[in-house]
Each structure stands twice: as structure tokens, then as C-alpha cells.
């Protein structure tokens, strides 16, 4: 199969002229430093030796975190910027949905802007005339088309831009994260339009953070990270690999945040209300919490879990002197500071008897039924009357991931049942 887009060993270096901050023409002339100042003194490698091909008629999604070079790749394909090395080859007429309505003039009417925008995108005046009605209907702007564009809402503006760009009828369509235009209905229309493109054998290259979209729409996915191609091929597999890598990073970030919080925690803070939301550490330290670990289903410490995982909170404690007056407690808070769950051995009617030397306390949760989000953890050991030995307030963060984007804090085990006359596809 022939390819519509081909990138061969493409690298793109953005130069930064940090020394140029105050170097104006005049001072450059005075210091005779024009040539020197025009030399870049810092180079940023946005794409590193990237090669991939997009087969004619296929829809390909480019995924990757922010700053991974996705948009740069798209701009190179669009021909807006040139690669520093390597070659980019595109076969057929391109239309790039990179910025919708770029080039609209606010003072003149939607109608005139449609014509000028269409011509900018490579149509002739007659082409635009023929497609004018289709464009206006698609944008759902029939009654406002003669008003100046400056009176449009941002949604109207985007819709008109999208409508023009899509009616250029390109062979290759480039889309950069522009599906967030308009309401649900319009988004569906856009998706339908992509589907139609696909059926008509056109090539579509999409850059997006919406993995669901890639999975649904694309024949193939390319994953870029830090300017390098990490994987390419079946969308499900590439997305899986990408998600795993994102989890790894999140784990590291959580670990770093936790380490920082523990380190900077005040040695003796206010022994106050259990629900005050400042992080810190306080207590007499007669009994000390020496180590806190979250342990996932694979029995190794982690910071990222999935909804429904079996998770344990493992505390290492040390009592300087043997004691019989102690209560262990844990609390889970979400990012808004809402206490999702809290308990201690006192509430659960366990009467302390003896604690001596180093010990381990494990709080096991069979199924972590929290919705997706970042959570913080309180752990504490204190006297039965509440006087703290060692209180760790919100020092430990962990992240819960979920395939379902349900809302709230708690996901009860649940199921739906329907009478036979209710049906789903």
C-alpha cells in the first residue's frame, strides 16, 4: 500500500536566542554582534529522528504527553515549518485543522470571512461559492452569517472555522486537538465527518489527548515521547504502552511529593482538629511511625492503583518504651480535602494491650472502591484519650486510575438491571 504521509528520520531543532533578549538592531550594530547574536546559543530538540508512514486512506492518531513533539510533527506534515534534518513527504492536498478560524477578520461578516478563509486554504472563489451553503449549514450559522465575526461567540467562531476547513475537501486532513468545539451535537457531527472522510478513502492524521477517540477512530496510533517515537501500530496496544508509561511517571511524581512532604513536615505541629487540611507531622514521638508504604495487588510498594485493586497501608512503628496505651488510625482524603474514609483501632473496639520495640501494622483494603483521582493519606498513632504520639497529616499521596470516568468519591459495587423492553446496543 502506498503511503500518503511519510516522515523519514525527521529531526526538528528549535533554537532559542537567549542572548538576544536586549539585542536590538541598534545595539547589534553598535556592538557589531549581529552575526554572533544570530547564532543560536540554545537548541531544543523537539523531534529526534522520527520516522513513520501513514498509509493512504487510513486514520492515524498521534498520542503523547504535553511537549512530546506531537504538534511539531503535525506542523511539519502541514509544511508550516521545515524539518532540521530528514524528509517529510505528503501526497495530495492537505487541510490542517490546527487553529480554527486563524485568519478570520473580526470586523467583516461571516460570509466574507468564509470566502477569504476558503481562498486562503486553497480553494478558488467558485469552489467556495459552490460549497457556501454546505459550510453555513454545517456550522449552523445561517442566521448570523452576515453579522461581523467579532460578534460571534467563541463556539460560533470555531464552528465556522471548522466548517470551512473541512469543506476544503483535502486528500489529507490534519487535526490538532480541535474536537473540543461546540456542544455534544456538533462534536458528533465532526466525528461523523471524519468517518465520512475515512469511507471516501481520505487520509486523516489526528493529534489528541483523547485516547478514547484514538481507539474508536484510528486504524493505527503513533506514540511520541520527548520527541522520540516510542511505539507505532495497533491503537489498543500503543495506548496500553502509553498508559503504562504515564503510570510510571505518576508513580515517580507521587513518590517525590511524598518524600518532600515527609521531609518538610513540621516536627511538632498543632494538635488540632482531625479535619484541618494542612499537612504536617506532630506528636510526642513516644511511639513513632518510622515507615509508611502503600502496597498494591502485586505485593510491591506503589503510588498508583486502579479502582478495585486490593491495597494495603503498611506502617512501620517503634515504641521507645513498652506501652499499653495506643490507637492506630488511618484516613483517606481526596484532592478537595474531603475525608473519604477514616477509622482507627479505638473506633473499631480494639483495646490496646502491649506494644514494644519495632512492629508492623497493616491496614488492608480488599477493594479500593474510589473513583479516579489523587488522594492523600493520614496515618497516626495516639493515646486512647487522643493525645498524639505521632501524627502524619496528609503526607502521603497516591493516585487511583479508572477506565470509567464516574464521578464522586466512592464507587460502590453496583450493577444495572432492566426490564426486557429497555435495550442497549
Amino acid at each position, binding site marked *: 500500500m502506498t503511503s500518503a504521509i511519510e516522515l523519514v528520520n525527521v529531526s526538528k531543532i528549535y533554537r532559542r536566542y537567549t542572548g538576544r533578549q536586549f539585542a*536590538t*538592531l541598534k545595539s547589534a550594530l553598535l556592538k557589531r554582534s549581529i552575526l554572533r547574536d544570530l547564532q543560536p546559543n540554545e537548541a531544543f530538540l523537539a523531534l529526534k529522528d522520527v520516522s513513520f508512514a501513514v498509509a493512504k486512506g487510513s486514520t492515524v492518531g498521534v498520542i503523547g504527553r504535553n511537549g512530546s513533539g506531537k504538534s511539531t510533527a503535525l506542523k511539519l506534515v502541514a509544511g508550516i515549518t521545515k524539518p532540521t534534518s530528514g524528509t517529510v513527504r505528503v501526497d495530495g492536498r492537505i487541510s490542517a485543522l490546527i487553529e480554527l478560524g*486563524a*485568519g478570520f477578520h473580526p470586523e467583516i461578516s461571516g460570509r466574507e470571512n468564509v470566502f*477569504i478563509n476558503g*481562498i*486562503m486554504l486553497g480553494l478558488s472563489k467558485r469552489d467556495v461559492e459552490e460549497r457556501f451553503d454546505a459550510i453555513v449549514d454545517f456550522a449552523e450559522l445561517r442566521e448570523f452569517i452576515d453579522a461581523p465575526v467579532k460578534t460571534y461567540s467563541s463556539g460560533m467562531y470555531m464552528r465556522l472555522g471548522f466548517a470551512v476547513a473541512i469543506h476544503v475537501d483535502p486528500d489529507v486532513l490534519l487535526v490538532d486537538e480541535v474536537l473540543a468545539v461546540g456542544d455534544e451535537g456538533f462534536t458528533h457531527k465532526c466525528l461523523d465527518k471524519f468517518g465520512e472522510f475515512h469511507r471516501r478513502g481520505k487520509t486523516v492524521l489526528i493529534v489528541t489527548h483523547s485516547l478514547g477517540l484514538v481507539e474508536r477512530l484510528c486504524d493505527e496510533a503513533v506514540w511520541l515521547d520527548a520527541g522520540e517515537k516510542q511505539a507505532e501500530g495497533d491503537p489498543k496496544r500503543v495506548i496500553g504502552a502509553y498508559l503504562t508509561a504515564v503510570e510510571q511517571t505518576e508513580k515517580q511524581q507521587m513518590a517525590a511529593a511524598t518524600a518532600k512532604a515527609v521531609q518538610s513536615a513540621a516536627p511538632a505541629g498543632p494538635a488540632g482538629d482531625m479535619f484541618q487540611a494542612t499537612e504536617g507531622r506532630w506528636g510526642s514521638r513516644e511511639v513513632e511511625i518510622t515507615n509508611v508504604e502503600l502496597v498494591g495487588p502485586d505485593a510491591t510498594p506503589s503510588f498508583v492503583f486502579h479502582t478495585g485493586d486490593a491495597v494495603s497501608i503498611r506502617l512501620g512503628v517503634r515504641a521507645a518504651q513498652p506501652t499499653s496505651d495506643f490507637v492506630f488510625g488511618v484516613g483517606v482524603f481526596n484532592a478537595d480535602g474531603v475525608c473519604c474514609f477514616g477509622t482507627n483501632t479505638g473506633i473499631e473496639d480494639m483495646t490496646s494491650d502491649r506494644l514494644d520495640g519495632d512492629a508492623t501494622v497493616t491496614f488492608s483494603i480488599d477493594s479500593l472502591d474510589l473513583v479516579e483521582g489523587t488522594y492523600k493519606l493520614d496515618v497516626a498513632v495516639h493515646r486512647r484519650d487522643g493525645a498524639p504520639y505521632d501524627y502524619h497529616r496528609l503526607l502521603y499521596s497516591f493516585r487511583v486510575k479508572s477506565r470509567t470516568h464516574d464521578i464522586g468519591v466512592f464507587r460502590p459495587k453496583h450493577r444495572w438491571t432492566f426490564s426486557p423492553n429497555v435495550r442497549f446496543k
Partner: protein
Amino acid sequence: MLSNLGSLLRYRGLIQSLVARELKARYRGSVLGFVWSFINPLLLLSIYSFVFTTIMQNNDPRTKPFAVFMFCGLLPWTWFSASLSEATSSLINGGNLIKKVLFPAEVLPIVSVLANMVHFLLGLLILAAFMIGFRHYPNVAALPWFPVVVVIQLIFTLGLALGLSALTVHFRDIRDLLTNVLTLWFFATPIIYPYFMPSVGRFLAVFRLNPFYHFAVSYQEILFFDHFGHARSLLLLGALSVAVFLAGYWLFDRLRDSFAEAV
């Protein structure tokens, strides 16, 4: 570069509609609208006429009626200076297009020059009205030279506009520098004073180095004085203008790839 030059022809539809948009958008929302295209030069002219005929009395009978004489030089100058100041900012103002759309950047400065050329051509109507009012008519035999001067000025202005707009992307100070240079240039050109003033004659060699000196003199000879004796210099200027255009376009083409990143 040549193939790029050739593709300029392909963009004529785009250039045409952008010039139309520029003209439409400029006066959109103002009460008098397009009439401003006429009022602006008229106001400018009445100020200069008042200063140079009433306050600083100009007694050279050859420049009477002074308003018509001055208008002959002022109109092309306004075209030239407005084109350059708009063109230098055109790439920066059109940054969105250059960064986000595959767009032939040279169209932007060209549109600035052409939109101002339309104002210039409209201004000619006022000039004609003045000539009729003052009963001072141009020499019909010299009139065929008029379009020649206009075309040469167009080429010259386009060359400067392309070169300056490309440089301005990297050196924003050109915009401010240009404002001052244009003021100096205006007074160094015989527009509000005749080129045959004795004090001009003393520095004639210097004056002749100024390309716009030849434009102004040509316009004045064709439209105001009875004889046109500047043909040779004008054709030389034509050659220079083509060179300026090619140089400007070459510079633009060299810097083209840096626009999307530097704008």
C-alpha cells in the same frame, strides 16, 4: 526563488480578496466609511497648503497653484510611506496565519502595498477635482508616462516592503526606526518645496541619490509642469527598482523558514 516568484501569480486571487478585505475592514464601523479615503488626504493637503501659502509665503510663480503642486508629490509619498509602515508590521500582525496555516507569507506585505495603492488611485480623483477647480491641467503629451512611474514605484515599494517586513520579524525595532527615517526622508524629498529651488541646486548631487527624488520630480513634471524631461533618470530608477525588488524578495525567501518560529 524563481519558482516561488512564479507561485506569486497563483496567489493573485488570494491577494485580491485580502486587499478587498483590508479596504472594507478599515472603515467598517465608522460613520463616514469609505469617504475617509478622500477626507484624509484632503485634510492633510489643506494643512500643508495653509502653512506653505499663508504662513510661510511661497512666492515662486511656477508653483502656483501651490495646493495642486504639492498634491502631486504628496499623494505618491503617502502611498509609499503608509505601505512601508504597514508592511513592516504585517508579518507580526499576521502571526496567526504564518504559525497555524500553510500560508504564503509574502502575500501579507504585498497586500499592505496594494491596499495603499488603491487609496493612492482614489486620491487621484481628488487631484483631478483640484486641477479642474484651479484650472491647471497637466500636459497631455506627458501623461502616458504616468502609469510608467506608478508601476516603477510599485516595484520599488514592494521590494522594500518585502525586505523590511522579513527583517522586522527578527528586529522589531525596524518599525520605530522606520517611522523616523520616513519623516527625514519626506523632508529630504522635494514634495513641499520645488526641486528647482536654488538651495536644492546646491546639494543636487546628494538629492539625486534619493530614489524618491526621482519619483517626486517625475510626478510633478508629468502632472504639474509642462514638460517631462526626467525620462532617462526614471528608466534608470526602473532598473534600480527591479534590483531592489529582487533583493527584497531574495531576503524574504531566505528568511521565510524562520517566520513560523520567530513571529
